């Protein structure tokens, strides 16, 4: 047990914080305020991001030969967290790049990883379909091999970054006869290939737009249609039919890690620091014993989020032998985010429902917009129900429920 970062890691954290304090200005802040998923979206934020890349902080834990620094996961976490706090995303864990690092060919690694670290390419995640969420058995998007190409036909949905991503990390069925996880493959598909159509789907954060830092503040996501899209075979990641395994390998931090941690806890800190501020409402609220008690409870739950994140980081640093701990974190964190946001609503009273741009909105309406978005963290990247199944079975050895066929054979249905 060692519940602190090492001196080197703390020095890095201070260096990043100092860099941000010295270089973040209103121009950059203004652009990042509307940056979707934290991707620099204007000249000032792009220049700022380029300086971060020059410092070697982007992709810090990736090997040097692929554009990283060969740093520790703790270092990557520290950098990611500090930049996410100002609304800017730095490549770390996720579904795309770690899977390429784990399963890609040498050429793929050299092609994609340095470019991704520099921010020149970016993957949208293309797993979910209208009839297939957590249960990949339902994936219908098909890829048929014809010579040196796959021909892809089908549809994906909730492909959040598709309208500005350069590629889709696409799960397709390459063996139409296969069921469930077998017969799936991963293709790294350039988004500009002929036959791909991206259509927007507006979220409940669309109008007014959520302030920066809001949990699931995205104003829109997408559905993507594939109509006879010819994808070169060189875009196949890992083996044909090994799509499920490819998606599992590599350090997938979509469910855990800095971004999920901040999604779950940012409002806890916001609440405390706002209550300590100058506003007259805050002064009267912070002396109310009932509210003080609730604030302490929310805060402690937030600390559990942090400790579970640190536990996952510890496990990942020791080789990533997760049993149930990542799933446990993906239950506790998102549900805490919802509980805390709802409690904050009750604390703020009618001010808690005022959205961005409204008169009397508290902190640009971030608490209100969080009430719109927080529950999405319980849904995406494995719902908390699926996560609880995994905790029960892997963490405690509880029996899998019989399949429909098994139940029928036993006369249970």
């Amino acid at each position: 047990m060692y519940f602190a970062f090492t001196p080197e890691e703390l020095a890095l954290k201070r260096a990043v914080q100092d860099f941000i304090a010295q270089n973040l200005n209103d121009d950059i802040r203004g652009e990042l305020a509307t940056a979707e998923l934290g991707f620099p979206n204007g000249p000032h934020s792009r220049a700022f991001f380029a300086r971060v890349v020059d410092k070697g902080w982007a992709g810090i834990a990736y090997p040097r030969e692929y554009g990283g620094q060969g740093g520790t996961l703790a270092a990557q976490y520290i950098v990611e967290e500090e930049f996410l706090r100002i609304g800017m995303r730095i490549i770390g864990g996720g579904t795309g790049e770690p899977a390429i690092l784990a399963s890609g060919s040498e050429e793929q690694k050299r092609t994609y990883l340095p470019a991704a670290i520099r921010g020149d390419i970016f993957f949208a995640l293309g797993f979910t379909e209208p009839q297939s969420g957590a249960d990949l058995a339902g994936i219908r998007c098909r890829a048929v091999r014809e010579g040196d190409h796959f021909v892809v036909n089908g549809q994906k949905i909730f492909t959040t970054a598709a309208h500005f991503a350069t590629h889709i990390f696409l799960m397709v069925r390459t063996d139409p006869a296969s069921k469930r996880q077998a017969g799936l493959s991963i293709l790294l598909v350039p988004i500009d290939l002929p036959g791909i159509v991206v259509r927007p789907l507006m979220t409940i954060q669309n109008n007014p737009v959520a302030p920066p830092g809001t949990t699931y503040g995205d104003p829109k996501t997408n559905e993507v249609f594939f109509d006879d899209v010819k994808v070169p075979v060189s875009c196949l990641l890992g083996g044909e039919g090994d799509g499920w395994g490819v998606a599992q390998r590599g350090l997938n931090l979509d469910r855990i890690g800095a971004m999920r941690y901040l999604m779950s806890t940012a409002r806890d800190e916001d609440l405390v620091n706002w209550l300590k501020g100058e506003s007259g409402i805050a002064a009267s609220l912070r002396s109310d014993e009932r509210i003080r008690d609730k604030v302490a409870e929310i805060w402690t739950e937030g600390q559990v989020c942090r400790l579970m994140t640190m536990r996952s980081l510890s496990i990942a640093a020791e080789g990533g032998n997760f049993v149930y701990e990542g799933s446990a974190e993906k239950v506790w964190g998102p549900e805490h985010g919802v509980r805390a946001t709802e409690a904050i609503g009750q604390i703020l009273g009618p001010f808690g429902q005022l959205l961005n741009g409204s008169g009397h909105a508290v902190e640009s309406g971030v608490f209100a917009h969080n009430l719109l978005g927080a529950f999405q963290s319980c849904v995406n990247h494995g719902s908390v129900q699926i996560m609880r199944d995994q905790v029960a079975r892997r963490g405690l050895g509880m029996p899998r429920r019989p399949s429909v066929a098994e139940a029928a054979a036993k006369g249970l249905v």
Partner: protein
Amino acid sequence: MNTLLDEDEVMLKESAATLLGAESPASLVRSAEASDLKYSPELWRRVADLGWCGLCLPEEYDGQGAPLAWLGLLLEEVGRHIAPIPLATSSAVALTIARFGIGSQREILRSVASGESILSWAVQESGGAWNIDAVSMPGRVDGDDVVLDGTKLFVDGADAATHFLVAIRRQPDDAIGIALVDARAAGIASKRLVNMAKGDQATVSFRNVRIPRSQVIGGWSRGRDALTFLMQLAAVFSASLMAGAARRVTEMSAEYSNIRFAFGQPIGSFQSLQHMVADMLITVDAVELLSREALWRIDSGLPAEIEVAQAKSFGSQHCITVCRSAQQLHGGMGFMIEFDLNLWYRRVVSWSLCAGTAYEHRRIIASHLLDRPGHMRLDDCHPEAGDEQGRLEGHNETELEVVK
């Protein structure tokens, strides 16, 4: 940063689990409950011989000088097996003496390490509040003596204890002190309470109990700091015990759900129960992480007031829920005195309500967060403490000086 146990820590925890698994079965817990002593002298002797009683005490007083977090691991196992030994109580007092004791005050630690002396604290009074400001029992200075007069409630291990560490206020200036008093001294009487754990908890009255002022641990000037430290250890040790106990009922629930059948299948295959037990495990892990961090910070010389309060408030609130879920899963058996589950439930209730309730500890947290200046982050809520790394680096040297 590593929240996981290292090899030594795993070995320590596993050996404690093996020992208590063999030597602290539910039958021992029941016989201790039914006995006058309320604890097992044989098991106490056994763990004393293994060095548990002096695990974190200085080596010059026959202790092992181990990190405080290691004692937390032992206490998790004590809680997991609800071992009937006063390890948490006695250790909290001994560690307070080790840190704040001056001159010969620390001599008693040798007999604590050997298991001969059993120490207990006496803090709460008739109002039941877990709060230094609620301490009102007078200690009247009379020449070189201090005369104690008053009554303390909820004193754990009252009959087993050879000494009490009593929180008092010096008359007439109300300075806080903690006085070590021989439990057999004239004027002391205890009356056992019937608490839910059916343990050795009592009301202890002090009538004109005269002690030399050299028994005020750390002297009057450090009395408040010493009492704060004692109360922090008492609270966080209680959280460690609760984490262990709640883990055991979670394990029992998973086991039972695999062997109890309903509608032709093990009840553990029902998703409603899987999700309930998953929540139990998640909660137990949370209490464990919070209490381990608090102990680690105390040991590292970092401010830990809020971390202790986090562990105890969260543990007090949630470990009862874990036990209740275990009872729910066990159905009617959870209500039967002959079925062992109630042994854990009753102790968790007692632990959760003593050494500060969820409300009392959340009051500490709220005050820390809202009543002092500085920007708060979850990973840095001690802006007043300045550079934590500097403190960590300088810590080992200062600690050694204190020990000398």
